[in-house]
């Protein structure tokens, strides 16, 4: 490209009235080895722009397939809650009844034990009556 043209483009460039294609031409001109000495000062600018475009984003971004775990967790929670509300009171009542029955059983047991103990004591006393009977028989037999 002629030098004259490049100078005009540069002028337009700094007024921001160049097109993308014209700027491309400038970049191409300044990327070559031979640049007119009085324009050399602009070379780093255009070279820098060309270089800057080479930079790449290399990091891997972990894109997990999104799953609506939360939706299902809430559904499960509601199910558990409903289950609990529906069956909970029954179970609790059963449990209370069982506890009462246990208590009644223990009380009855205690009472019966007491009775048995007292009966036992009564039977002991009856042993003496046996002795009396034996002695009585002896006396009858002697006579």
């Amino acid at each position: 490209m002629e030098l004259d043209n490049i100078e005009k483009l540069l002028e337009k460039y700094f007024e921001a009235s160049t097109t993308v294609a014209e700027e491309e031409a400038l970049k191409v001109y300044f990327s070559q080895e031979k640049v007119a000495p009085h324009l050399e000062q602009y070379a780093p600018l255009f070279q820098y722009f060309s270089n800057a475009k080479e930079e790449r984003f290399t990091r891997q971004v972990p894109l997990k397939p999104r799953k609506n775990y939360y939706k299902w967790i809430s559904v499960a929670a509601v199910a558990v809650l409903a289950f609990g509300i529906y069956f909970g009171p029954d179970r609790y009542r059963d449990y209370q009844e069982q506890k009462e029955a246990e208590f009644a059983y223990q009380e009855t047991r205690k009472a019966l034990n007491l009775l048995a103990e007292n009966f036992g004591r009564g039977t002991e006393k009856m042993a003496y009556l046996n002795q009396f009977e034996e002695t009585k028989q002896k006396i009858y037999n002697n006579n």
Partner: protein
Amino acid sequence: MRQSEFLNVVMPFKDKLYRLAKRLLVSTEEAEDATQEILLKLWSKNEKIGSYNNVEAFAMTMTKNFCLDRLKSRQAGNLKLVHSNYGDTDTPLQKQVEAKDSALWVQKIMEELPEQQKMVLQLRDVEEYDYDEIAEMLDMKPSTVRVALSRARKTVREKLMQKHSYGIG
């Protein structure tokens, strides 16, 4: 939208997002984090992506907003200034060092520009978008974009001239 379709949509411009983020945030890690964040945000909205008429412009706007927020937030105080490495060219070492040096100048000069001019310069001179696209991405009028671009280019030229005439500064 499935993962493969999503990747097909996003792949062509993910580097552009990254470069814009890096232009604004300077640090490589910050820019990578920002890009990842933007991609994940897009992915989380993947059902709606079909309804955006220009996903690329939308993603660019998201990146711009995200980075400006980052800069505003307190965390920005922890930003590290890390300079990127440039690709090797085939020029001899002396020339190469010089070129690298002047490329670094350009980068440093760009870092000193106001955010808006930085973005306009990045989107136009590096990414080669046209004015209407830039206007859409940055939520500006095309004429404002032009003015900002001209200002940015002239500032860069002026500072580059200073460096050039003073030698390595």
